[in-house]
């Protein structure tokens, strides 16, 4: 039987050694920390050698479907049950992946991700709520994550420009203070 609505079991963001950058579990399938780490290890080793840099890849094991995509030293994963529509999971993955790209202004690597971990965590919070898909459109996710005065619909290009200016100003200020 299919789930009444599409659901995501976890979202993982790991580094190139399989260590956690940010992870979020929504299902009780892995009740302990050890079970979670074992799952991450297995996902990482089974996908490590594949080339998931241009198109999202997919794998199936232990009764789960995992879609994944890599960039630099970051590995993005979205897991669903084995009856789940793969395309829906892939849409969630793409939303997460692109939103992180927007938030980090295309400097997507582990170091930048950790430096902006707060934004990454907020981003996860805006994509899935308790396993239910909240939003899949990268620009909306990134907008909700970064904008301070938010009305959900404001255009992304405006935001990024104003943010870019703000950051530039901050950098300038810091260099002057040094």
């Amino acid at each position: 039987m299919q789930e009444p609505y599409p659901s995501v079991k976890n979202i993982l963001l790991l580094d190139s050694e399989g260590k956690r950058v940010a992870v979020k579990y929504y299902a009780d399938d892995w009740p302990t920390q050890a079970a979670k780490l074992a799952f991450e290890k297995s996902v990482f080793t089974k996908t490590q050698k594949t080339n998931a840099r241009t198109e999202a890849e997919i794998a199936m094991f232990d009764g789960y479907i995992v879609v994944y995509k890599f960039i630099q030293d970051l590995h993005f994963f979205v897991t669903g049950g084995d009856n789940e529509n793969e395309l829906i999971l892939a849409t969630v993955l793409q939303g997460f992946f692109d939103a992180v790209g927007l938030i980090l202004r295309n400097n997507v690597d582990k170091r930048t991700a950790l430096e902006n971990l707060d934004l990454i965590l907020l981003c996860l919070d805006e994509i899935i709520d308790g396993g239910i898909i909240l939003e899949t459109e990268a620009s909306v996710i990134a907008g909700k994550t970064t904008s301070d005065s938010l009305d959900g619909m404001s255009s992304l290009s405006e935001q990024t420009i104003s943010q870019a200016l703000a950051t530039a100003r901050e950098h300038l200020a810091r260099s002057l203070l040094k």
Partner: protein
Amino acid sequence: MAQPLVKKDDDQEDEEYSPFLGIEKGAVLQEARVFNDPQLDARRCSQVITKLLYLLNQGETFTKVEATEVFFAVTKLFQSKDTGLRRMVYLMIKEISPSADEVIIVTSSLMKDMNSKTDMYRANAIRVLCRITDGTLLTQIERYLKQAIVDKNPVVASAALVSGIHLLQTNPEIVKRWTNEVQEAIQSRAALVQFHALALLHQIRQSDRLAVSKLVTSLTKGSVRSPLAQCLLIRYTSQVIRDSSMNSQTGERPLSDYLEACLRHKADMVIVEAARAITEFSGVTSRELTPAITVLQLFLSSSKPVLRFAAVRTLNKVAMTHPLAVTNCNIDMESLISDQNRSIATLAITTLLKTGNESSVDRLMKQISNFMSDIADEFKIVVVDAIRSLCLKFPLKHRSLMNFLSNILREEGGFEYKKAIIDSIVILIRDIPEAKETGLFQLCEFIEDCEFTYLSTQVLHFLGNEGPKTSDPSKYIRYIYNRVILENATVRAAAVSTLAKFGSIVESLKPRIFVLLRRCLFDSDDEVRDRATLYLNTLGWDGSVGEIDKGVKEFLFGALDVPLVNLEASLRSYEPSEEPFDLSAVPKEVKSQPLTEKKAPSKKPPSFGVSANGPTSPIDAYEKLLSSIPEFSSFGQLFKSSAPVELTEAETEYAVNVVKHIFSGHIVFQYNCTNTIPEQLLENVVVIVDASDAEEFAEVTSKPLKTLPYDSPGQTFVAFKKPDGLPSTGRFSNLLKFIVKEVDPATGEAEEEGVEDEYQLEDLEVVAADYMLRVSVLNFKNAWESMGPDYERIDEYGLGVRESLAEAVTAVINILGMQPCEGTDVVPNNARSHTCLLSGVFIGNVKVLVRLSFGIDGPKQVAMKLAVRSEDEAISDAIHEIVANG
């Protein structure tokens, strides 16, 4: 304003730089004191929260005291007006998931945010509050939530709707009151609001089939915009179709036009969802399948791995039931064998193995050999299973397939994988006589170098059964005796038994076997010595027994002809008494599918098209139930119980189905009744059966059901006497009679006085197939020949125009109610003729074998030749009558 960046302004700018380098829980908890500063530094506070979240994310845990401290400190931060910080506060509260008494502290702050002018605050506060709240608080905020559902800001509406879906699990009665608002939200122009609203509304109404059906019908007319919402609608539509096809026999599926239209949607996810829904229709026809298969075929050559995977996975499932429908995709499928993605390649191979025809087998095997070395064991097992079924389908190809199996057997692999190969070879040897010699030889080779004791003993046992019957049994002795010299005690003991079997069956080998067995008398293990002694004495090595006594042979090597599960059940129910346990009284009905299918992996498969295990027959439960009723105890041994037959339409007030229990001289109808009206309690429920159309039956007793409360099924029985041992047939009309009492829904108490009422049920038929047990034979040819042509009856029948040959074969199998043997129920693709072998036991314990030859001509006219052999002339005729009347 600048966003808060997490920066540790240290100067360690080396390679290993991480903002969280050397972070420690204790120190961060200390840092959290800044939350209490009268002058809040929003930036600093955000950084500290990020560090706390980082620790939690890395798997660090806070003690109860630490969590409480952090929680209270975090609540102070609601004073700050900084939006970035507020977001982090929300996240932190969700992560800590405070206890009920702590929740109260933040409730008022969150409720304030819920009514804030800032949409972002409102949306987030709703999600946080609903996550941590309990039922009592929920009633306070319900009003706001209802407003939020219809809020003009989609983010707020979605937050409320998603929270509603979660809350429905814990507080259904409250969420169900929001139906009107949710219905309004479905009309929203925002894609995701529509998606969330639809999901929630369906969850609210899921137990009410009629409401779901109405909802689906109205929405399929086209107001759903977002692809995600479309996917939901497709799921609900196929649910409605599933439910409705259960009670209408017309064969038309409502709403299937909608699903077909979805195949032309522009979003891939909708197409896949729709195609999958169509292929999963029960009893899907090839006309329905074709459009779905066509779109999936296009996806097979997509550049996106996810799309290729979705397509091949779906086609793989279809191939299990409709191999013919998938053959068009074979060329695309073959190119996927070399797909970079191993999951896709494995699915493609197993699909091809299911759909391939005889001529493509060799080519396919070549392609697979290259592929096998670089996939994981779990995939290999799937491939091995597929090859076994292929070999059973094309016995002529056994040489190349057996070759393949023996090659991979020699390669490295884990236990499960090797076991799958051994199981496959054993099954092939059993079912394809020509493959026997090569197969046995492969097994001998295998045990020469086998690290798994379990597999060695299994192979040795099998060799003992099959080896002596080959043309040159002596050549196996060397391999077996090697085991006695080289292996551990368990394997040695098994080898001794195998040697003894050879000795007992092959007279010429006997003296040599005795020599070998005598050597085993000095083994270091007592089990090995004991076995050797037992066999030497019973087989008469000292010349005391000339011809081996048949009883001895039976005792030593006789196969148990009852399924072990049944034997176990009978032994459990046996109570020590004067009467010895009677082995012949153990039921022989085979519980699940034939042997070949039973070997499919039973643990949770990696879902590569391994068919779900058939439902285990509830015959044990029936037997227990019936034997507990004194009125039926004199009827003797239960011969067969039918599958339940529905006597009511779905969604009626009372749901009744019936199970027919056949005894030699009696038949018992078990009516399973369910009362679906919460406001009613039924008493003295009984079924009045009119058997005027069933002359040979006479009602002997009936057992009413005392009470039938809402939604807890109960049974009432009616028993008939019938001519002993004969397959009497007839038609029975049924009337449900009962006393109905009103129940107060508030208190659950029933009124004193009841009213008598009745309810017409559908008719029930007892047909000849009810008297047939599905019992399989391992080797049909042997069984057929040993039965002899004395009571053979042959006749020919025209079956008229049929959808396909496969459909005709299935229909005849169902009419006869017999067990297909050796996988002959599967009709190869494009076959113009087919032979199907059936076996069964007819009432009176008469073995029956049937050989069906089918032929189909151009305009789909199907003709059939039916040859029956049985132990009784009258039964052979009866089988023909069944078909003639069916």
